[in-house]
């Protein structure tokens, strides 16, 4: 490669990778990697673009920049909804309580009080005061799954490193480890959702429920997407198509994976640890 590389070269090379950017589903990138053999080496291993950064990588960073605003908005919505929810709960807003505990809770009230806003408010205020003291979260459980997700980030960098070094055995081990840990995390989230739902935190019943499920659910969807990409990488690796030339593919999936992890770092503290 030389410094006279022109966009016409890169235009092609990049198109190879084009698929990978589809909605950041870098898993798609993986199969295209098999084009590697289809062109002369001089064509694809040359990343001399205007900025000296590969198109794919630039695109991925841009996409992640945009994701910052997405998660930023979701986290803000969560914080706002939670604050609002707590204020109303403590104030004994009967609608909030009904949303949280179901209509039966209201029905179950002593006769004289039912239907009278004032009294319902009073009674529920006490219930609410109790309810808000006792957090629904199971911190040790979530800490464990957060830890697993953090660890998966380590596995991810190690997979990348192994790929760069052409150590395919370790590459596969670490990729598989990353995917497995991601799946454990998702499994934990599903379990958690089920428990919360049983305990009465419905999606629509309260601001808090809506915001909690939407924020963590969105994150979960991102993790799931990452797992799919990792599986695709694994398949490629077993087919022998994920050689050290394509380390960038692994790096891109890694960027995405770490980003999702970093978002969880924020969510864990903001949602779970800060009451």
């Amino acid at each position, binding site marked *: 490669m030389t410094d006279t590389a022109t966009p016409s070269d890169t235009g092609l090379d990049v198109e190879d990778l084009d698929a990978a950017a589809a909605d950041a589903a870098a898993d798609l990138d993986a199969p295209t990697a098999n084009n590697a053999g289809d062109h002369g080496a001089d064509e694809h291993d040359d*990343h001399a673009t205007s*900025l000296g950064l*590969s198109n794919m990588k630039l695109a991925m*960073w841009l996409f992640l920049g945009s994701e910052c605003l997405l998660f930023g*908005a979701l986290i803000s919505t969560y914080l706002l909804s939670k604050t609002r929810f707590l204020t109303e709960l403590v104030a004994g807003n009967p609608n909030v309580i009904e949303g949280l505990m179901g209509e039966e809770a209201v029905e179950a009230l002593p006769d004289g009080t039912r239907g009278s806003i004032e009294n319902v408010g009073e009674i529920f205020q006490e219930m609410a005061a109790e309810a808000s003291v006792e957090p629904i979260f199971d*911190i040790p459980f979530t800490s464990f799954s957060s830890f697993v997700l953090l660890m998966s980030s380590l596995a991810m960098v190690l997979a990348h490193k192994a790929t760069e070094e052409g150590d395919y055995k370790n590459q596969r081990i670490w990729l598989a480890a990353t995917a497995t840990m991601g799946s454990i995390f998702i499994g934990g989230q599903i379990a958690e959702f089920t428990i919360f739902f049983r305990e009465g935190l419905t999606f629509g019943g309260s601001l808090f429920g809506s915001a909690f499920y939407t924020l963590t659910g969105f994150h979960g969807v991102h993790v799931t997407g990452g797992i799919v990409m990792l599986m695709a990488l694994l398949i490629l690796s077993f087919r022998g198509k994920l050689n050290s030339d394509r380390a960038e593919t692994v790096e891109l999936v890694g960027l995405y994976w*770490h980003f999702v992890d970093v978002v969880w770092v924020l969510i864990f503290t903001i949602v779970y640890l800060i009451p």
Partner: protein
Amino acid sequence: MADSAVSDAPVSHDDHAHGEHDHPTEAAYWKIFAILAVLTAVEVLWSYLGLSGPALVVPLIVMMLVKFVLVAGWFMHLKYDLSILNGRYFTILFAFGLVLAVAVYFVVFASFDWQI
């Protein structure tokens, strides 16, 4: 215009765009991970100390940010990619999104919660 922030001539690098040379070693990765793990543990413990108000929140936020920086800086190689010297500083565009998000949503909060 001085050369820096707004780029000049297209640069062409003979190191691969993701050169192998400037990334942390495997040991370093493990070290970072150890720190992350310890921080997570401290975070969780802290949340059990029964503190409230700033005493609870501020350390948690600080630890959260440290974790954020560690993952972004080392695992995502931002620490290396953000360096002006290697010509790959356009990953700063990500940082731009991040800063923008923080700033904008902070203002939203200010206008909500402090009723200003």
